């Protein structure tokens, strides 16, 4: 068998077991094992490429940047959500199992349906609200003000946190870690005035209160976003919101509503 340039054949091999699901022929996912050559620099994504180019061209997975920034290649590696391009075979000398991201519907092999995720992301109005559009100069924002939200702006939308979240697994309507972290990012931005528009959805039963602080979302986040922190800080905001409403005169009362979109 021919080997591509990137992985010479004289290398050591290990067994990589990959979840397959071919919707036109399978009723449920099955496992398939491959003996994959590897060296110190071989990532799970490289190994998938090797399988696709040398063993089975029908293997389907998403990928693009290879440098952990585009967020395409999320997979389960031995049951833990990981970016394929940033997970290395050298760390699994006894072999590994690669599966589609948990908690999402599987479309084909390692490709899952991300539409629910995008729907949740959109529901929380993740953009600056209340900016004048005509100003010709930038707003001032101190480095400290940037720091307040910067961590939550680093989300690459890879979806690993949704795979790590049992609450999302149990209730796909839960807006989930990345979406809430992004809403929190805008709520913390000194330039934004949209908190009141985002809060109803955050306060709703599928908002922050669906989280039980398992905390695994933050563990698996490849970018240190710490969505669990965002959600649980959101609970404090939500509580304050409730307290304020309780004491507010009636005309200011804005009853929490389900998101309409």
């Amino acid at each position, binding site marked *: 068998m021919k080997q591509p340039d990137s992985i010479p054949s004289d290398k050591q091999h290990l067994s990589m077991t990959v979840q397959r699901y071919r919707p036109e022929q399978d009723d449920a996912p099955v496992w398939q094992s491959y003996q994959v050559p590897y060296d110190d*620099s071989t990532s799970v994504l490289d190994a998938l490429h090797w399988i696709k180019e040398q063993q089975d061209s029908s293997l389907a997975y998403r990928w693009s940047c290879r440098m952990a920034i585009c967020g395409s290649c999320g997979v389960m590696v031995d049951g833990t959500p990981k970016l394929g391009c940033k997970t290395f075979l050298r760390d699994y000398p006894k072999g590994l199992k690669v599966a589609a991201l948990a908690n999402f519907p599987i479309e*084909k092999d390692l490709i899952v349906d991300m539409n629910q995720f995008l729907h949740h992301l959109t529901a929380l109005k993740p953009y600056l609200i209340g900016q004048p559009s005509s100003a010709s100069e930038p707003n001032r924002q101190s480095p400290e003000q940037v720091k307040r939200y910067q961590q939550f702006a680093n989300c690459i939308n890879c979806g690993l946190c949704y795979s790590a979240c049992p609450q999302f697994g149990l209730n796909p309507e839960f807006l989930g870690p990345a979406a809430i972290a992004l809403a929190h990012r805008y709520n913390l931005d000194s330039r934004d005035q949209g908190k009141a528009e985002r809060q109803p959805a955050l306060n709703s039963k599928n908002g922050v209160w669906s989280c039980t602080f398992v905390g695994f979302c933050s563990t698996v986040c490849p970018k240190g976003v710490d969505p669990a922190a965002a959600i649980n800080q959101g609970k404090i905001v939500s509580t304050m919101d409730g307290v304020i409403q309780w004491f507010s005169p009636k005309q200011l009362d804005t009853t929490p509503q389900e998101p309409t979109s």
Partner: protein
Amino acid sequence: MRQLKTDILIVGGGGAGLRSAIAAAEADPTLKVTLLSKVYPMRSHTVAAEGGAAAVTLQHDSLTAHFEDTVAGSDWLAEQGVVDFFVKQAYQELVQLEHWGCPWSRQASGQVQVRRFGGMKTERTWFAADKTGFHILHTLFQTSLKYPSIQRLDEYFLLDLLVHEQSIVGALAIDIASGELLRIQAGSVILATGGAGRVFQFNTNGGIVTGDGMALAYRHGVALRDMEFVQYHPTGLPGSGILITEACRGEGGILLNKDGYRYLQDYGLGPETPLGQPQNKTMELGPRDKLSQAFWHEQQQGRTIQHPQGDVVHLDLRHLGERYLLERLPFICELAKAYVNVDPVRAPIPIRPAVHYTMGGILTDAHCATSIQGLYAVGECASVGLHGANRLGSNSLSELLVFGKVAGEQAATHCNQVRISDSVLQELANKAAEPIQRLRQGDGTEQWADLRQQLAHTMEQGCGIYRDEQGLSASLQVIADLKSRYQQLKVGDTSLAFNTELLHALELGFSLDVAEAMCQAALLRKESRGAHQRRDADYTKRNDQHYLQHSLACYQAGQAPRIDWQAVDTSIMPPAARLYGGAAKPEAASNTEKTK
């Protein structure tokens, strides 16, 4: 075949596509804007840009200076009217992005921070740490969600443009999830499909950067301009080619050969600057073409360092200190640790040049319009004339904002639906569907992966940093051979849903055409200019007398393209020697006109 009717179809969900979608939606909210992309927009390769976006910002800077840097950087092959427009618009576009929430890095005063960049006279590069492209892309994507008239077709793959009597009437796409074909009727179409760096073996680009839009416009008779100019970024990681931003050098990083010597001073970029005191347009802050060429010479002379993944030099950042590195270059620290097991705080990063950017592209006028009525192109897939023979780092992120806006507004103004009967449209769509039907039924013996591998190999061999007639001719021969073998392709995966093998096969078809245009243009440009360097004895110098012209690659079915030549707009700044480092000082002093 499903059908869809829209006013404006935008292909590509990267920075240029998103910016034009927003511009179109703002220009006329009653128009239906459809944004089609083969990946979710936030996966687009804009995401990987690191260093920043250029615009004249500081008091002591001037539009003239940015103009001069860009034109000199282009080795006088930029369209000067376009550059002039660009430098004037860039600032307002970056401010616009600020108003949309982009987390630009700030000074203590709260004002936007700017950093040094290669080939730029002064600090004018706005940045968001070292993930500027990521933040620009996500800011644009998130902002686009505000506009109800923008409808997305995520994970749809463009198969062909539908052109009727030299006017665009729509496009044919495939829904990747189901494999169904979608016929789209559109009043105007914007191509924002990105570059073609993946035709090379060793590149900084994502897997999606395969030249799709370039090839499709080209096959419909739109010329590809200046395709021989392919930018090697001087600092990619060995093995993977992962990008290590120019901002490393902007912040003061230095390049060392195996003797620990700052070799750039030997290549017209000196004198050596003191450690920790980088100087604009000098040493490590020279332009990318010169730095990549210097590496090549060091390699030839055996002064590079042996690394398990090939020859490298060292990028040393240690003197910047841990705190500064984690503030300014956190992503670089993360990448170096993950992919070459080096902590830049403690050790130099091994790097080598890697293909990064396609300067050339779909020929457009200054308004992003192509020769097909209603078809626009913008961003890396286009050649609006900004970069010429060599792009300056941080000009392209600004480009996709400035010209994304232009393209969106133009497409909105000129999106009158061409009157076309449904049957004619369907006929066009059926014809456009033929290649994919052939691939699906193909019963040959050739494998997509083999062909792609050989293409990437021959491009690296014949069309790399230095080129000669022999190598280019050999590559053209290989490409011709690959194109004929492509007709015998066998797609093993016969399924409809997420048939990524089929998509890779289609991308390979696009890449072959684009690669051929690159080699043919390179073969016929018998001079050395910017990123195009010839080793043939008579062609090692710039030759303004014969080649102060754009190359235009014109598609010819079944053979290499015809190369036409187009005059360059040099109306503002006449051609002169391109000097950096100490040699540039007298020249720089003579034209420091302040316009801002």
